[in-house]
């Protein structure tokens, strides 16, 4: 049996982080938290999470996107699944980055507040995919 998967939440709102972290922990995951992009990058490099939930609007409106760029430039983090969790698209109508179209991809997008059931389902799916890829490279 493998150990619990590690999920990193990068979000500058401690309340949001706390709530989602508790839920994910209760659902069987180990959760790490980081309060901004720089810290998120540092923790990700050190801990190698299995999946990252990335907020976009932190100190800057588009901070999260650039943190994703930095992560993709880091060889160890190039392929880690990243879910964007943000209310940015709700706040700027007409603006949207389709996850699939991205060159520096993120794997899914969730609007805030997050539907926890859907989030959990998507996390399970994505981690299962990674597991399959590892077994049959």
């Amino acid at each position, binding site marked *: 049996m493998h150990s619990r998967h590690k999920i990193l939440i990068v979000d500058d709102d401690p309340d949001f982080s706390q709530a989602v972290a508790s839920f994910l922990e209760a659902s069987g995951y180990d959760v790490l938290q980081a309060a901004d*992009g*720089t810290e998120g990058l540092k923790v990700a490099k050190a801990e190698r999470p299995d999946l990252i939930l990335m907020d976009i609007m932190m*100190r*800057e*409106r*588009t*901070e999260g*996107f*650039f*943190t*994703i*760029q*930095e992560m*993709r*430039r880091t060889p160890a983090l190039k392929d880690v699944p990243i879910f964007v969790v943000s209310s940015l698209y709700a706040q*700027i*109508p*007409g*603006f*949207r*980055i389709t996850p699939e*179209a*991205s*060159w*520096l991809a993120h794997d899914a997008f969730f609007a805030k507040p997050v539907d926890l059931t859907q989030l959990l389902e998507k996390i399970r799916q994505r981690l299962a995919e990674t597991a399959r890829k590892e077994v049959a490279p």
Partner: protein
Amino acid sequence: MKVLRLPKERLDLFASVLQQFGEVHAPVEQNGKYAFRALSRWSDARLDYPRTILPPKKYFVPPKDTLFQYKEGLGYVPADLAADRRIILFGLHSCDIYGLNILDQVFSGKYDDPYYQARRKNVAIIGVDCIPDEHCFCHSMRADFVDKGFDLFFQDLGDRYLVMVGTALGDDMVLATGSLFEPVTPEDLAEYKQRSSAKRKAFKLHVEIRDLPEIFELEYDSSLWKQVGDRCLSCGACSMVCPTCYCFDVADDVDLGARSGSRSRTWDSCLFSTHAMVAGGENFREGRASRVKFRYYHKQRGFVAEYGRPSCVGCGRCISACPVNIDISQVISQLRGIENATA
């Protein structure tokens, strides 16, 4: 040509969308100077920079470029060009784009260079306009405006940009952003024209290039070159920072035992003492004066003969970088016999 407008407050959103097409690099500040780097956050970008230390050529002709490796039993292994690494250079000034267009002539003209080509294909160029400072003379070198070599070009209109689309990729970038761009208004055009003409008048440094190759020819034996040569340190900084200096040296790095090794090319400079040394030990430009003279002649006359235009773009980096303050515009003025010029 398609023209659109983008309010400046949306620039960070645009830069985020750009990540679909590659890593976004832009000028960032380091210790009071500027350099092109991958961005960690949009606010690091300094689009109002005067010039970067190194020109964008470092993306296409890296200071040290491994060409291939070889190993006993394995044969030749071509270098990994990271050809799947897409980069977007956001914020190139016209002079630098002009410089890249010149490098295109050199590396894809008579001798097609696959290393340069692979990188050129994977790097997108977004230009940004600028206000000349006291070292800029790109207007004199006709490099203050480019009509090709960019995917998008942003003209600053105060609180918004006038955006010119240069290629299909640039068009895709605009389409990907959906509703961020707006149509251009007559006020925008009027503002652009006004600023464009104001910028032309803002140049403080002027260099007349019209009969310059001929003057160079006539002044081949001028004592000026000894004067400049005496000051020059042959450090090569001017070549390193020049957008169009492309001289390179090729050397093999062989492991002890000679079972494997690699070949790489590195930046070279005609100012280095061994630049004109050939097998047998003969050095055609042993003195510094002759080497300094060579560089000027290549840039302003030799290149003209070969490619039809001087390779100097007037960016002012050499003036900025020279540790002994040799100023190309002053050297040329002295050559022209202009009073009060101090080379």
